[in-house]
């Protein structure tokens, strides 16, 4: 079990196997690599909480929740980076925020997670979105 502090949720304790490792962190936060995904029964929204920085957490959700037609291709280099063996192990999440009354999704930088290896990466989509 891994115990860590968070500023929003107090002290959390999770099984080691639940920790997602982003080898390059997220853009802007390259040194924070371990995260835990917290989901809820009553909403598709989740928190992606950093293990090594109590204040750092992102609100994420699956792209289909906001954009049913959103499709991103997994390029071979990323597939190898994530050590992806089975396509069903792949999950895609988008970081979202709110600005005033507007919900804004980071379509440019989706998160790809491999549930098999528990590795993650933030991909920068190679066209302006």
């Amino acid at each position, binding site marked *: 079990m891994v115990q860590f502090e968070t500023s929003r949720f107090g002290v959390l304790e999770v099984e080691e196997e639940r920790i997602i490792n982003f*080898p390059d962190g997220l*853009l802007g936060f390259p040194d924070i690599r371990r995260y835990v995904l917290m989901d809820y029964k009553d909403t598709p929204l989740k928190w992606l909480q950093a293990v090594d920085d109590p204040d750092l957490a992102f609100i994420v959700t699956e792209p289909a929740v906001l954009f049913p037609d959103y499709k991103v291709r997994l390029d071979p280099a990323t597939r190898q980076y994530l050590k992806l063996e089975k396509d069903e192990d792949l999950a895609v999440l988008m*970081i979202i*925020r709110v600005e005033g009354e507007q*919900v804004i999704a980071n379509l440019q930088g989706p998160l790809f997670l491999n549930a098999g290896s528990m590795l993650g990466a933030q991909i*920068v989509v*190679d066209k302006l979105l």
Partner: protein
Amino acid sequence: MLVLTRKSEEAIKLGDSITITVVEIKGNQVRLGIDAPPDIRIYRNELYEKTRSENIHAAALSIEAFKKIKERLK
């Protein structure tokens, strides 16, 4: 910043494992070929910066913001 001048088909090496080749020069556009190991990620700079900036804006949201977004999704 190191500035080098290269002609078409000439290349630059970064360390031992990354090679950048000038594939073609056409008007004001340069086509670059990049050879790098899979763990080195390659981005168009402006897209990288846009993503990074979005992350930084999104990183400080509160539980109230979560509730607000949850309401808007209903």
